[in-house]
Each structure stands twice: as structure tokens, then as C-alpha cells.
């Protein structure tokens, strides 16, 4: 299995009970996983744990057999090779688009860096914006820079925290499409968290439903749709899911 996450538990200091309880999932290479849940369900905690920004109480996490954390080891975030796109993008305001993207490519040779920069700029269709600064870009463009920056070092896994929450509705539909296209074209394994069922159904290969820190359901979007009680919403989602399955 490409990625294996087993029995991960986490609790915040000074709080009783687990914010995340026995979270387990195996993920194939290139798969797009969506973690769906209401706020406070523990979905962002999953991302922070996988990125190495929080220490788990117990459990294990491996990528291609390499241990990210288990009972004995804890690999620092910078050693994991996991990219992350933050909810509000966290683009460094003192760096241009190209400087932001080049930031994580410090191990490459100069010529390789240049080539990789062009590749990812092309992938996100922002070639002509390379010298702009984050505040000179629209919300959608900023998001694409954040994705390009996270993808550039060729991470094993990319994590996206509520990738559409800062975008307007019209843009959301377009960006969903773009994002799935980018992720699939780059064949990057990804996990994104969202509270929006439409996002999850439209973008993901598999959906993990979280409730109060525990997994409630795991399945493909169409499997979960069968369990969906609201036919109207399900109908709308089906249409969108079909549209994106074509991509």
C-alpha cells in the first residue's frame, strides 16, 4: 500500500477525550481522498497530524513503508516530503510568485529549478504572473500559486485544507475542475478536507466522513450517495460528480 495510516489518536493538551479517535485508512498512489465533516469534527487535525505539525497520541503513518510517525519515531514536517495547501494559502507576502514556488526547491540545481518552475507555472496556467506578488493576484490565482508551490518539490502526498472556502461560488466550480485536472495530471496523491459535500463528491476518488473525531463512513462518492437521504441534494451532486468523473 502506498500510504498507510493506522489507529491514529490525538488529544489536545488540557482537554479530555480524543479530538481524533482511531483514524485508519490505506491510500493508493494518485488517489484523491476527501475528508468530509462539520467544523470541530477533527478533519483539520488529521491534516496537521499527517503534515507533522502536531504530535499524535498514538498510531502510525507510513508512506511507501517509510515511517512518518509511530510509537517510536516522529519525522519532522520538513523531512516528510508532504506538501500542504493552507486554507488561506499562506503565500509569503515578501516573495513573488516564482520566489514562493522556488522556496521549496532548495535542493535542486539552478537549471532544474528553472525547469521545474516553468513546469508548475504551466500546470497552473500562471506563466505570465511569475513576477507578481501575492497581493496583486485574485483569490483563484493565489490558490493556484499555493498548489503550484506545494506540488513543485514533487511531494509524496499533498494536503489541502478547505481549498475552496475562500472562493466565490462561480469560481469554486471552475477551480474544482482545475484542481482535479492538476492533481490527476501530476499523478499526485492528495487528501483534502472540506465541510462541503459538493466539493467532496465532485473532486474525490474516495470520501472519508468524520464525526466527533471518528470515522463514520468511507467509500466512493457514488456509494455514499446511495446512503444520502436528501434526494434533491443527491441529484445535484450526482450531476456534478458525473461531470468531474469525465475529467
Amino acid at each position, binding site marked *: 500500500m502506498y500510504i498507510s495510516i493506522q489507529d491514529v489518536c490525538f488529544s489536545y*493538551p488540557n482537554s479530555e477525550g480524543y479530538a481524533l479517535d482511531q483514524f485508519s485508512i490505506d491510500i493508493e498512489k494518485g488517489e484523491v481522498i476527501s475528508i468530509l465533516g462539520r467544523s470541530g469534527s477533527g478533519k483539520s487535525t488529521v491534516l496537521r497530524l499527517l*503534515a*507533522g*505539525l502536531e504530535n499524535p497520541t498514538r498510531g502510525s503513518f507510513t508512506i511507501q513503508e517509510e515511517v512518518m510517525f509511530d510509537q517510536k519515531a*516522529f519525522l*519532522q*514536517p*520538513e*523531512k516528510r*516530503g*508532504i*506538501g*500542504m495547501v*493552507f486554507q*488561506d*494559502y*499562506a*503565500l*509569503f*507576502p*515578501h516573495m*513573488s510568485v516564482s520566489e514562493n514556488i522556488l*522556496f*521549496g526547491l*532548495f*535542493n535542486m540545481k539552478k537549471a532544474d529549478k528553472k525547469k521545474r518552475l516553468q513546469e508548475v507555472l504551466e500546470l497552473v496556467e500562471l506563466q505570465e504572473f511569475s513576477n507578481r*506578488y*501575492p*497581493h496583486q493576484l485574485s483569490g483563484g490565482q*493565489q490558490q493556484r500559486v499555493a498548489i503550484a*508551490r*506545494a506540488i513543485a*518539490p514533487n511531494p509524496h502526498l499533498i*494536503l489541502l485544507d478547505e481549498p475552496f472556502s*475562500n472562493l466565490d461560488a462561480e469560481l469554486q466550480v471552475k477551480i474544482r475542475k482545475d484542481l482535479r485536472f492538476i492533481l490527476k495530471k501530476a499523478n499526485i496523491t492528495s487528501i483534502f478536507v472540506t465541510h462541503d459535500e459538493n466539493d467532496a463528491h465532485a473532486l474525490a476518488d474516495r470520501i472519508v466522513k468524520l464525526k466527533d473525531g471518528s470515522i463514520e463512513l468511507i467509500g466512493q462518492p457514488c456509494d455514499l450517495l446511495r446512503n444520502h437521504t436528501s434526494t434533491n441534494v443527491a441529484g445535484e451532486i450526482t450531476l456534478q460528480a458525473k461531470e468531474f468523473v469525465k475529467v
Partner: protein
Amino acid sequence: MANVNSWTVLAGIIIILLFLPNLTIISGIFTPSNENWEHMKEFVLTTYIKNSFILIGFTAVLTIIIGLSLAWMIARYQFPFHRFLKWALILPLSIPPFIGAYTYHGIVSYTGVVQTTLREHFGLELNPVYFDIMNLPGAIFIYTIFLYPYVYTITRVFLSQQSASLIESARVLGKGPWQVFFQVVIPVSRVSIIGGASLVVLEVLNDYGVVKYYGIQTFSTAIFQTWFGLGDIDSAIKLAASLMGIVIIILMVEKLLRGRRQYSYSTTKVRPLPRIQLKGAKAFFASVYCFVILSLGFFIPVLQLVDWLILTFGKIPMDEFLIYVKNSVLVAGISATCIVVFALIVGNFGRLVHGKFAKLLPKLTILGYSIPGAVIAVAVVTAFIALDRFLAPLYQVLGANSTLVLSVSLVMLITAYIIRFFAIGYNSIEAGYDKIGTDFRDASRSLGVGLTKTFFKVDVPMMKGAIISVFILVFIDILKEIPLTLILRPFNFDTLSTKAFQYASDEKIMEASQASLLIVCLSAIAIIIFNKFLDKEPK
């Protein structure tokens, strides 16, 4: 967790070094009390407490009113002389309060310019009591008018760099300028306001020059009297411990006020606040208000000092003065650099660690600011003599003639400055860290960049404004510092402030003007550089 550990070790060493003098004071509490202390406790301690609280209370309120109103006007509105006023309003910080105190006393005294003009040009012979400022209200006026820039600077930087969307969304939600100010600006800038005001309060509690000159009994004057007048260091330390108690209460109140409301950008997209053009009477009154404050805090005392300088020029040789300038810049520059570096390290440690105890550790270091300079001096001298004794065999190997090396060097004075002024650096750096939040750091780490490299490539560039503010604030404060420099300077080492203080204490007020004006000039140059850096909008 190798990176976290190296930050922890570094921060731990700094915290221990900065906290050591506090231990001297704490241990002093447990020494048996003597007759002097019993007498003070019975008769005068209440007066010290009452006077100190009146001074800090009124000064805090007035500096917040003036500092915040100026910060908001400059950050939000455009009016005549805006560009000049933006940096000039920091200038009062370049005048040490004790120089301001004797200058204002000179201005309103019987032979001063105000009463002389009234008598000679208007034939008015008013009761001199009306012009007496050597009392509590007078001291509050002096502190307010020379210390408000602490609140102004920190709050203005915060307001002009904070996400403009908060203010704009309030406007869109139907709030007028006043409602925006009271319902949005004050709450979101509370951390900066309280940070600035707490610096003012600590500065007032530690001041010696103004209260000594105006004859007001406070903890500072009492500590000096007890130490130098009665020769009773034990009682002086007990007084310092009481003062520390007050400071701990103030710090706890500060924590309470801002602890639960730590604001960082809810979005990491930083956009400068656009300014609104004022017109007509509003523009006129905005300019007048700023100029009145600036005149009281800078132009009036400086004009008086220039007048005195003209009357006394040439009495002190210029080459002698150039040495004082060099000495002042040297010690202030080295100390301010060390404070910036240490504050960044300890502040970053505070961000990296979890748990209440670990978060409290950095706060311990700023207690140094609560201890009067003279008491820090005793603690530092004691520590350095012990260190010299310990290192004596090494000195012999290196062929030194004396067993006292460090304790007669500038290292001791600089160490004392760092302990004394660390709070200024730490508070502003911590506010800067609060403001940028942790998303940028986490983003950098997720891109494979370690904590230390992230610190230099992300945190430091994003904190440039705060770092420069800290450097300038500390630099200016050290230029003006008196008791530590007087006691700990190496033999024959004079700075501008020690010279100015010596002349003023000897009632040679006019002769003090030359050194005082040089302090003001150096500080003013530093402020102009400061303004140049802060003025650079994000690219």
C-alpha cells in the same frame, strides 16, 4: 525534535541569564528585616505605593488616549503635513524625561520664558504657584508628553499593516468612522495598545530622574535614598521586591487583558490600510491636534535647549563631546543588536513550545525591566566579580596582569543594559510573532525547510518592521539611560547621558543642554532611519 531542542537550549540560556538578577531580589525578601525597613513599612511605604499608582495610572490613561488617537489619525487619514507628522510624532521619545522635566521647569519658572514674557510684555504678575509643575500632575504631564510615542509607534504599525478588510467590512456593515474606531479599531489593536502602555508604565516605575528632580517620593527615589543615603542595600532590595510585586500585578493584568484575545490575521493576505483624504476644517483640526502634541513633546523643549546652548556654547570642548558621542553609539548599538537577537530567539521559543509553564518562561525575562537600574547594577557587579574570580586562572595563563577583567570592561555594562531593556524588545517581537501567526512557518516546513532556515527566510523578513522598531526603541532608551551607566561604566568612560545628568544635578541646567541636544539629535537621526524602513509598503 532536534531543531526544537536547539531553540530550547538557546532560549533557556538566555532566559536563565536574564532572570539571574531577579533571583538576587527574590532572595533579598527572605533576609531578616532591619530597623530602617520597619520604619519605612510603618510610615512611608503607603506614600510610595500611592504616588507610584497615581503616576502610572494617569500616565497610562493619558498616553493611551494621545498615542491611540494619533496612531489612528495617521494610519487612517490623509491631511496636511501627514508625511512629516507620521515620523515626527515619534520625536518626543528622543528627549529623556529628566531633561524634559528640568527644561519645562526652566520654561515656567519665575525667570523662565513664560513668566518673564507675561511680566515684561503684558505687565501680568501672576502667582508663581500657578506655574509650579514640580508636583504629581507636573510629573504626569512630563511622562505623558515624552512617553506617548511607545503607544503611538506600536499601534500605528499595527493599524497600517493590519488587514484592511476588517475596517472596510465594518464600513460596509453601516458603521461610521467613530463606530469603526470604537467597535473595531480599539478591540483589534488591543494587544498593541496594551503592549505600548505597559512599556510606558514600566518606564514610569523605573524612572529616577523626573521624580528626583521634582521631589516626589516613589519607589525609585526611595531605593536610591535607602541605598546611597542610608547605605542599607538590604532594605533597598526589599523595596525593589515590593516594586517587583507591583510589576507582577501589572503584567498579570496585561496578560488578562490581552490573553484571551490574541489576534492574528484571520487571513494571511496582508493588505495595507488605505487612507481617507480629510478636507476643510477636519483636515485643519487634525493637523493642529498633531502639531500641538508635537510642539509640547518636542519643539518647545528643544527650542529652550537651543536657547540655553547658544548662551553656553564653547564652555565644553567639542573634541571631548565627540568621544561621548562615539561611546554612546557604541554601547547602545551593541546592546540593541543583542536584545533584538535574544528577543527573536526567546520569542520563537515561546511560539514553538506548548504548555502553560513553557509559555510563562519567556515572561520571566521581562521582569528585569521592573528592577530599578541601580539594583540590577548591584546584581550584575556581584555576578561579574564572581565570574572574574572563577576565570582568574585562565587570565593568568593568558598573561593578564589583573584578576578583574570582565568586571571592569564594557561587557558588564552591556550585560546590564540587556537585562534592563529586554522587555522592550521582547514585547514588540512577541506582538510581531502574534501578528504573523504560524501558517507561514508551517507552510515553509511543509516545503521541506527546517525551523532555523524558516526563521531566517520567512519569520525575519516578515518581522522586519517589528525588528527595526525594537532596535530603535532600545537604542534610544540606552542613549538616555542614567543609573546603570553611572555605576557600571569603566573608568573614564562617559556617555552623553551621564554628562547631561551630571550637569543638571549640579544645577548647571544650561550646560546640560549641549549633551542633551546631542542625545536628541542622535535619537532623531535613528528615528528618521526607522521611518524610512517602516515606510516601505509591502511589495
